[in-house]
C-alpha cells in the first residue's frame, strides 16, 4: 500500500501494527477512538515484554514517556493539544502518530502560514458550483478541521503560531462550542463535531513572538512542551531509527558504522555546548542543532556516498555534509566551524584517533572549499 508514495502517512505505514493492536485491545476506548489510551501509548512508545503482546511493537517516538501520556490524556479530554518546542524536536511526528493511532487518519492537516486564512480552518466555496447551483452544502468545500469535526476524528494544525491572530481565533469557537455555523445557508447551517474530535496543534517555541496566542485560545489548549533531546543514548536511537526509515524510503542498502554515528552525536553535543557558552549570536551557529538536523546531516552523507561515492559511508563524507549543512551564514558560521574544527575535532582526533582523523580531514577540506 505504501508503494507509489514517497512518504506514507503513519496510519498507512504502520497499518499492520494498528490492525493488530486494535484486534487485541480490550481496554475502554473513549468516544470513537480506534485504540484505548494504553494501546495508543504502546503504539507510540513501543511494547514491552510485560505488556503481554504476541508481537513486538517498535518504538516510534523517542522521548519522555510522560509527554506522550499527557498528550494522550489531553486528547481524551475536552481540550485541544498544543505541542510546543524547538524546531526538530519531533512535535509533528508525535502529532502524526497520535492522530494515526487514535483515529487512523493523520492527514487532516492545516498548515499554519502567514497566508493561512479563516477559510482554511472553516470552509470555502466551490465558486463554479455556487454560480451553477447556488450556495448549498454540496458547493461548500470543508476544511480539514471541519472534516475532522464531521467525522469525529483528530484534526491537526501545524505551526499554529505562524498564522495570524484572527485565523487563530477562529479556532476558539471550534474548540469550545464544538460546532461551526455556516451563515450563508438557510438550513442545515451548523456543522457539529462528533465525539472523538480534537485538535493537535504544533507550535515552534522560537517563533512564539511572531503571532503569540491569545489567552482565550491558550485556555483551550493543553500545552505539552517537547524539549530538545540531550540524552546521548536516546538521541542515538532517534537518529538510527529515522535514518533507517529514510534509507528504506530511498531503497538504499548502506550500513551506518556505529563509530561514525558516535562521531556525529559527539560533534553535535560539542557544538551545543559551544553554543550554550557563546555570549552573542555571532558566536553561535544559526542552526538550532536539533536531532532533526543530525538526521539531515546523516541522510545527506548517505545519499552522497550512495550516488557519488563507493557505497560506503566514510568519515570524510560525513564531515563535509556536516559542514555543508551547518554553514549557513558566511563568514560567521564558517568561522565558528573553523574554530570548532581546530579546537575540538583536532583534539579528539589526536586523543581518540580512528575515524576522527578522517572526520578532521574531511571537515577541513570542506571549510577550505566554502571559505
Amino acid at each position: 500500500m505504501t508503494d507509489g508514495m514517497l512518504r506514507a502517512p503513519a496510519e498507512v505505514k504502520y497499518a499492520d501494527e494498528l490492525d493488530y493492536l486494535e484486534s487485541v485491545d480490550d481496554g475502554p476506548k473513549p468516544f470513537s477512538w480506534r485504540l484505548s489510551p494504553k494501546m495508543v501509548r504502546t503504539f507510540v512508545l513501543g511494547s514491552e515484554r510485560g505488556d503481554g503482546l504476541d508481537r513486538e511493537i517498535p518504538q516510534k517516538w523517542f522521548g519522555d514517556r510522560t509527554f506522550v501520556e499527557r498528550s494522550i490524556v489531553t486528547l481524551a479530554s475536552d481540550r485541544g493539544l498544543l505541542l510546543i518546542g524547538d524546531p526538530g524536536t519531533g512535535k509533528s511526528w508525535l502529532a502524526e502518530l497520535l492522530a494515526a493511532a487514535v483515529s487512523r487518519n493523520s492527514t487532516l492537516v492545516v498548515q499554519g502560514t502567514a497566508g493561512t486564512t479563516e477559510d482554511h480552518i472553516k470552509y470555502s466555496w466551490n465558486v463554479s458550483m455556487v454560480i451553477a447551483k447556488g450556495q448549498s452544502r454540496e458547493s461548500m468545500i470543508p476544511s480539514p478541521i471541519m472534516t475532522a469535526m464531521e467525522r469525529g476524528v483528530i484534526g491537526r494544525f501545524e505551526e499554529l503560531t505562524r498564522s495570524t491572530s484572527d485565523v487563530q481565533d477562529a479556532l476558539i469557537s471550534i474548540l469550545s462550542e464544538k460546532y461551526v455555523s455556516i451563515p450563508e445557508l438557510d438550513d442545515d447551517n451548523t456543522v457539529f463535531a462528533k465525539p472523538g474530535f480534537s485538535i493537535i496543534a504544533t507550535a515552534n517555541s522560537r517563533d512564539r513572538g511572531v503571532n503569540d496566542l491569545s489567552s482565550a485560545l491558550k485556555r483551550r489548549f493543553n500545552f505539552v512542551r517537547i524539549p530538545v533531546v540531550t540524552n546521548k543514548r536516546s538521541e542515538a536511537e532517534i537518529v538510527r531509527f529515522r535514518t533507517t526509515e529514510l534509507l528504506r524510503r530511498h531503497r538504499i542498502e548502506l550500513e551506518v558504522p556505529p563509530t561514525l554515528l558516535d562521531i556525529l552525536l559527539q560533534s553535535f553535543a560539542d557544538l551545543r555546548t559551544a553554543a550554550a557558552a557563546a555570549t552573542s549570536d555571532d558566536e553561535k551557529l544559526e542552526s538550532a542543532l536539533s536531532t532533526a538536523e543530525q538526521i539531515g546531516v546523516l541522510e545527506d552523507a548517505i545519499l552522497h556516498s550512495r550516488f557519488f561515492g563507493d557505497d560506503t559511508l566514510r568519515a570524510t563524507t560525513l564531515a563535509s555534509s556536516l559542514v555543508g549543512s551547518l554553514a549557513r551564514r558566511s563568514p560567521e558560521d564558517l568561522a565558528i566551524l573553523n574554530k570548532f574544527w581546530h579546537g575540538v575535532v583536532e583534539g579528539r582526533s589526536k586523543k581518540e584517533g580512528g575515524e576522527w582523523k578522517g572526520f578532521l580531514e574531511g571537515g577541513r577540506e570542506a571549510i577550505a572549499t566554502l571559505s
Partner: protein
Amino acid sequence: MPKAETAPDGGGAFAALRGQLQDAAERFADAPGAAAEILAGMVDDVDRALAEELEIFPVCHHSPSSALAMARRLREKRPKVVYLELCEDMRPLLDELRNCRLPVALQAFASDIDGFDKEWAPLSVVAPITEASAEYQAIAYALETPDVELVAVDWSTDHLFQWEEDDPASRKNRKAKKADEPKASGSGSGAGAGSGGEAEEPDEDGDDEALHGDAVGVELGELRPGFAELEEHLLHHGRVRHWSEWWDQYVEQPLSGAGYDAYRQVMLLVGSLFRRLRDTGDLARSEERERYMWTRMRQHMAASGTEPGDALYVCGALHAASRVEQFGARSDAPYEIAEPTKTRWLYGLIPSSHSAIEAQFGLAQGSVSIAAATWQKALKLSGVAPFRLAGQKGTTRKSPKAAPISAGPTEDRLSGFLTTPPEAGELDEEELLAWSVDIVRLARRNGYLASTADAIAIVETSVLLAGMRGRNRPTPYDFQDAAVTCIEKDAVPGRRDVRRLCEILLGGDRVGQVGYHALPPLAQNVLDRLEPLGLDLTKRTVQRALLDLRSEPHLRACSDVLWMLRRLLPDGTVRPIMGSRALGERSVQESWDLALGRDQRWLVELGYEGVTIEQVLEQRLRRAAWASGATASTALAAVEDALVLLGSRRFVDELGARAVELLAAERTVDDAPEVLRRVRRLLAHYRASEPELPAWCKEFVTEGYAHYCTLLPTAFTDEETGVRQVAAMLGFLFGMESLALSLGCDHAQLEIAVAQAHPELPGKVALLWAARLQLGTLSRAELRARCDEMLGNPLVVPAFPRYLSGFVQALEPVPTLAPFVVEVMSKAFGTLPDHVLLPWLPRLVMTLREQAAELVPVLTREAGRTFPGSLPALDAWTPPWTAAAPEPGPGPSGRSSVPAGPVAELLAAHPAACDAVAALFGLEPTWQAAAPAPASGAASGLVERHPEAAGALAALLGA
C-alpha cells in the same frame, strides 16, 4: 515474638515461595545458576534475619509505612533497648531534638584535622531527621519512655572518613569533586567533603536546598538499587519517573496497610535484593559497617546485660539482610574496632529542609514533602498514635491509643505481596477535588490564568492519567502531571511554575529550626546579646532592627555585635540598611535587616569555630594575616577590621607587625595602591585619635619607604608593573616622606632611586617627570616646554595621550601638579588632531573611572578654578598659562620684596639666627627691606578694637 523455626536450607514457611522463585529464575534466565542463586538467596536472607534472636527492624528512609510500622511495633513490643543505625558519636545530639522544629540535621564538623588528608578540611557530616521517619519514632519512643536506652551503633563520623581514606575509589571521587567544585560555601566553613557511597551531589542550588552546604550526608535506612541499570529497569517497567515514585507505588502504598509481618518480610526481601545486586565496592563498605554495628551491639549487651529479646535493632533494610560473620547476637566472630584519629570533632544541630534532603540524597523533587503528607494521612486513617518528643514544636500532639496487636508464628506474607499487583486504596475523590481547586487558586495567585474550568480539567486528566498508568487512584505524581498539563502554558508568569506549586500544595517544603537550647554557645551568646533589640530573631522572616544610638546608648553593644556578624556571616544574613562603620566613622542611627532565623545554619557553624564571635573574628583575622598567600594589604585590612570591630590594642599591634613583615618580604608592587590607601587611612586615624603613632605604624612607614625606594627603579622599567602601581609607590614615598624622614630615613635614597629610573613607557615617563618636579630636579617651566615640544612634534603626538594618562596618575603622588595637568589637558584638547583625540577620549574616561576615580574631583575642582564660570567671561578669558608665559617672571632670586608681617619683622629684629644659618651654608647674608606693613587689616583692626583678649594672652605667655 514471631520466630521462624527454619533452617536456611529451604524448608519452613517460605518453602513454597522459594520453589516458585527458583522456577521463575529457570524460566527467565538462560543461565539458571546465577539467577537462581540470587532468588533463592533472597529467601534465605529473609529467613535468616527473621530467625535472629535480636529483633531486626528494617526501615527505609522517608518512608511513612516504615514509620507507621515502627510506631505500631514499639507500642506492641516496648523494647528496653533500641539500637539505631546512626553515627555513634551523634547520640548526645538526639536529646537536643526536642528543642527543635523538624526537619533538622545532626552535624559533625571538624576543621582541626589530624589523621586525614589535610586537603579535606573542613569535614562536615550531616544526618537529617524528619518527622515522618521510622528513626524519629524510635528516637521519640526511647527518649520519652523511662528506662529505655537508645544506643547509636554505627560508625562514628571519624570511622566514616577513615574508610574514605582507605578506600581508593572514595579518595578519587573526593579529589575529582574537589577539583570541579570551586564554590566555597559562604563563610568559608562547611566546604569540603563529598563521599562515594551515601551522598549525592545536589542538582541545583535553591535557597533551601543549600541548607546542608556540601556536607557529606548520612541517613538511616538507605535503600536504593546500587547500580543505575537496575533502577532504570525498575522505573521503566513500573512506568514511573522517579525512584521515589516507584517506591511509593510498589512498596510504600501496598505496605501502609499491611501487618508487621508482611512489612518486615517485604522490607527484608527488597533489602536483600538490592544488596545482592550491588557492586562490590559498595558492598564492602556496607559489610564493614555491619560488622561494626553487630560488634557494638554485642559489646553493649554484654556490658549492660540486656537480653537480645528485649532489644530492637533499627537499621536500613539493606543492612538487615546482612551476611557478615559477625551477624547475630550469639555470634562470636572477632572484629577489631579501629581507634579514632586525633581529629577534633564538634557537634551541633543545623536546620534542614525537605528540599535540602531531596537534593542531597538524589530524591525526586517534592518526594519528602509527599512522604510527610502521606504520613499524616496514614496516621489519620490507621488511628495509630505516633511517638513524639515532649515539647517538640510542630504538629499537635495526639493522645496515644492502643494499636491492634498481631502475634504468632512466621507466616509467608511474601508470596501474596509478590504476586498481587499493587492495590492502592479507593479513589479519594474528596481529596482530589480539594487539591484541584486549591492548585487552581494557588496558580491564579501566582499569575496563571487559571479558572474553575481548569480545576475540572485537572480532575479529569488526573483520573485519566492514573487509569493509563494502571492505578485506580491518582497518586500525587499523577495529580502533578495533570496540573502541569492543564495549567502550564508557554511561559511561567511568576516566580514558581506549576510543578513547584504542586509541591507547595502537597505539604510544601518544610524548613526546620534549631531551638535556642540546642544551639551552640556562640549562637546562644549572640542571641542573648541581641536581646535588647526586642526582636524575635528565631522567626524565619527578615526582620528590621532600628537602633538610635544617641537616645538609646545601651544598644551600642548590639550594634557592635551586628557589625561583627556582618563581617563573619555570608552576605544577606545581617545587612545594614542605614549606617556604616569604618575607621573613625560611627553612625548615630543604624537600621539592619536581620535574617538570623532563616540562616541559622551559618550561625551554628560559626559556633564550631569558637565560643564568642570576638574569638572567631580574632581567629579569622589571624588566619587571614598568616595565610600562605597573605600580602601586606590583606594584613592591613585585618588591622583595620581589628581596629573597627574588636578594638584590641594588643591584637592590632600583632597584626601590624605582621603587615610590616609581609611588606618587607614582598617582591612585587601589585598591591601598592591598596597598601597606600589603607596605610593612609590608618595613619589618619591614629593621628586623629592617639597622641602617638603605634610602633608598628612607624616601622611600617620606614620599612615601606626603604622597600619602595629599592623597588622603584625596577618598577619603572618593568613592563608588568602598571602605571598605577608606580604612582602608588611614589604616592607612598612622597606622602610619607616627612614622617619617614623624621623616623630616620634618608631623603637621598629617594633621590637616587628616582635618578636610577629610566622608564620607556610614555605613562611612566610622565610619572618620572612629575616625580622629578616634586623633588625639584625639574622645573615647571622645563616640564611645560617638554610638553609643548611634544605637542608640536607630529611624530610624538599620537603617543601624547598616554603621557597625559601618566600625568593624571601623577596627581596621586604630586597633588600640586593639578593646575599643570589641567593646562596640559586643555592644550591637548585644543591642539591634538581629531584622529588622535577622539579614539583616546573614551579610553581616558574609562581609565579615569577605573583607576583614578578619587583623582577626578581634584581635577574638576582645579578645572573649575581655571576656567571661567559664565559664557560672557569666556570671551575675555585667557588661559593663565598663556598669560603667565610671556612675562619672564621675577624668578625665585629676583623677588624684590618680601611680604611684610610679624614673621618678617621678627626675623629682621633678630637677624642673628638667620645670619648664622646662612653662614653655615656658606652664603653671604643679605637683608632686604620689608615692604611697609599694611597699616590696617581687618584682623589688626579687630585686635585694636578689642585688646583684652590679646592682653590676656600676652599675660598668660608671661610677655
